[in-house]
């Protein structure tokens, strides 16, 4: 095996929110791990250096939710294509969802996915296991085996568990093995085949709506179950201000619960679906501006500790139908960081908090020693030019999914280097 390179990243603005660091300094890497900040030891001889002047150097980003489509839907995307897209967006750790074909409900599928990710080599891929077998919502998956095979959490993804008893048992069983239960809160009876937020815009456009209550009912139910069972749970992809307020309450009560939000929910609203553009078809749906503002506030207050891409790449055909007949989802890996930096520009977050929501925030939810520049930690690093502005264009996206509603938007911040365990996996110059 080749010796891992020793690297010095020089003169960047190093932001490491977990350690309270925001200063112009050097960062040194040895053996794939962080060596130190500031002055290197006298005997340290880097194999190469990276000039990070006018750039921000931060921990590699951690994305809690991305669907990579492999195995089973390789016509949409593959592990290789999407992990490369992730690396180009500064993401070094990616949690993939179990709604593949076959479902991630057996160690064999976990093994296959991890093998493909290692072969591609762009990203640390952490598979999430299914909460129930084949995601049928009825029989528990073999969670102990899934954990042993490398699953980081268990989740229902897009298939809400209709049966509350199964939900309770799944949480209890997962907590037996200290597995985090990740829940996409949705009461499917209330969502009733809707495709947009139930509100003024849906009323006018005659599109079937998903009420806010579809989310708040599920959040309330699962908070009650978590209290009963003592399980640790995480709510994924909140979409309503009301759910965010419930989370704030739960935190004040000292509940063991966390939440994330998809970045597009912090920028878009139901008004964007006017014109029936299927690239805005997403689940949970884009809600109104007070929901967006409530979610922004929750992110600013750290009630929501993580921002994710909720990446859902699609082939063009999946979006080429009348709006309700299209598949929901946004290709979001490459716009996660720039859209978060946009929140800094807009005064929603300071730079350190913005980076925290993409690094140590998600790492702490997963309970992993990642997302910080602490010596001896894996040297997962993202270096970006915060002053560089660029325009999103579908032919420039590395993801196989070109289904972005942000095509044509001007974005702040461009990733120039991504390092995974001290290895350069992406550089802007190629």
């Amino acid at each position, binding site marked *: 095996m080749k010796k891992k390179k020793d690297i010095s990243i020089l003169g960047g603005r190093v932001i490491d929110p977990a350690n309270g660091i925001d200063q112009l300094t050097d960062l040194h890497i040895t053996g794939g791990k962080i060596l130190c900040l500031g002055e290197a030891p006298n005997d340290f001889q880097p194999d190469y250096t990276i000039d990070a002047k006018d750039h921000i150097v931060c921990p590699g980003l951690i994305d809690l939710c991305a669907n990579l489509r492999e195995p089973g839907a390789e016509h949409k995307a593959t592990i290789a294509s999407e992990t490369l897209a992730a690396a180009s967006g500064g993401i070094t750790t990616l949690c993939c969802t179990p709604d593949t074909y076959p479902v991630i409900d057996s160690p064999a599928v976990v093994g296959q996915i991890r093998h493909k990710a290692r072969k591609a080599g762009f990203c640390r891929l952490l598979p999430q296991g299914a909460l129930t077998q084949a995601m049928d919502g009825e029989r528990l998956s073999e969670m102990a085996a899934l954990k042993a095979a490398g699953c980081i959490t268990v989740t229902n993804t897009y298939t809400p568990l209709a049966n509350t008893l199964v939900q309770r048992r799944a949480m209890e069983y997962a907590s037996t093995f200290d597995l985090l239960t990740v829940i996409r809160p949705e009461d499917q009876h209330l969502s009733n085949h809707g495709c947009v937020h*139930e*509100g*003024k*815009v*849906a*009323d*006018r*456009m*005659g*599109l*079937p*709506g998903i*009420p806010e209550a579809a989310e708040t009912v599920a959040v309330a139910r699962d908070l009650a179950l978590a209290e009963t069972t003592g399980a640790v749970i995480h709510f994924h992809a909140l979409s309503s201000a009301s759910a965010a307020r419930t989370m704030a309450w739960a935190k004040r009560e000292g509940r063991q619960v966390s939440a994330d939000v998809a970045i597009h929910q912090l920028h878009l609203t139901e008004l964007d679906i*006017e*014109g*029936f553009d299927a690239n805005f078809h997403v689940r949970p749906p884009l809600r109104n501006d007070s929901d967006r503002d409530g979610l922004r506030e929750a992110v600013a207050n750290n009630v929501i500790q993580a921002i994710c891409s909720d990446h859902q790449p699609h082939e063009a*055909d999946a979006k*080429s*139908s*009348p*709006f*309700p*007949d299209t598949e929901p989802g946004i290709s979001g890996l490459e716009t996660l960081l720039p859209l978060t930096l946009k929140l800094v520009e807009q005064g929603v977050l300071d730079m350190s908090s913005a980076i925290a929501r993409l690094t140590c925030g998600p790492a702490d939810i997963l309970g992993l020693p990642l997302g910080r520049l602490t010596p001896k930690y894996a040297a997962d690093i993202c270096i970006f030019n915060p002053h560089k502005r660029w325009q999103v264009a579908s032919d420039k996206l590395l993801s196989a999914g070109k289904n972005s509603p942000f095509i044509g938007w001007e974005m702040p911040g461009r990733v120039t280097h991504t390092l995974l365990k001290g290895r350069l996996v992406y550089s802007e110059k190629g």
Partner: protein
Amino acid sequence: MSHSNRTLQLDEEQRLLHFLTIDGLGKEILTEILDTSEGFTGVSERTIKKVPLCRGKVVANLFFENSTRTRTTFELAAKRLSADVLNLNISASAASKGETLLDTLHNLEAMHVDMFIVRHASSGAAHFIAQHADRGVGVINAGDGRHAHPTQAMLDMFTIRRHKGEFVGLRVAIVGDILHSRVARSQILALNSLGVSEVRVVAPRTLLPSDARSLGVHVYHDMEEGVRDVDVIIMLRLQKERMQGTLLPSEHEYFSLFGLTERRLALADSEAIVMHPGPINRGVEMDSKVADGAQSVILQQVSYGIAIRMAVISMVIGTQNLRMQEVAG
């Protein structure tokens, strides 16, 4: 919404390119459609029921959802304009073979169709086709999901204008399943655009959109209050499958609360007209005595439907012809 719908449906000279929704069109265009229709009402009464306005043009009826009445009136309208008409009942052919909507569209374009008349179960389908069709091909929405049914709304406006003369000062009540009704959405837009003084919707809350007031209507849950002193009562069709279950408990209770009876009709203005887009569920939405009574204009709506559709088809084809002449120089 209004702006994007305006730019999609009208060219820079404010001529009709497509007819997808009432939204964004404005009073002038709607009035032009009504005035043009007036000229076509006589055609049906002639011995030779044809005018040569669309001779040599091919109009395709693209119906992804079953319909007899609407499809027939569009077909008659196109034929009276001397166009060639293709009737495609897609629910029974391509869609069941897995062909996508876009494939169907492109196949028909290869046959040099000049206009698509589209009915589809999904809201936004007509917009989708208009956005993907070749330039120069016109699209008319014959009903998409819960979104819009603009020609039905215009024939209703035509019927109202014929009976009431003008829109200003009118009070109109729309009764029934507003939530699932593309007809109601288009009617509300047209009535407000043409300047009636009040649009009311009358329904139980399960059959109303979440924020019905935002559509520009006054909301009533009591039928007697809702129809009191109105000049026009529009009854909506209630789909059979919605009569039992979680939206309504029974036909019986619905009729007892919201059915239009002679007694309730007497609460409206003495010269009020009664309309219904058809087909009627007698004894569910309205009493037979009202449906067949002196104030009912339901059958006139059907015959006016042909004139309205002739007007819209000829206006869109007319825009195509003018634009081709302009390009030719």
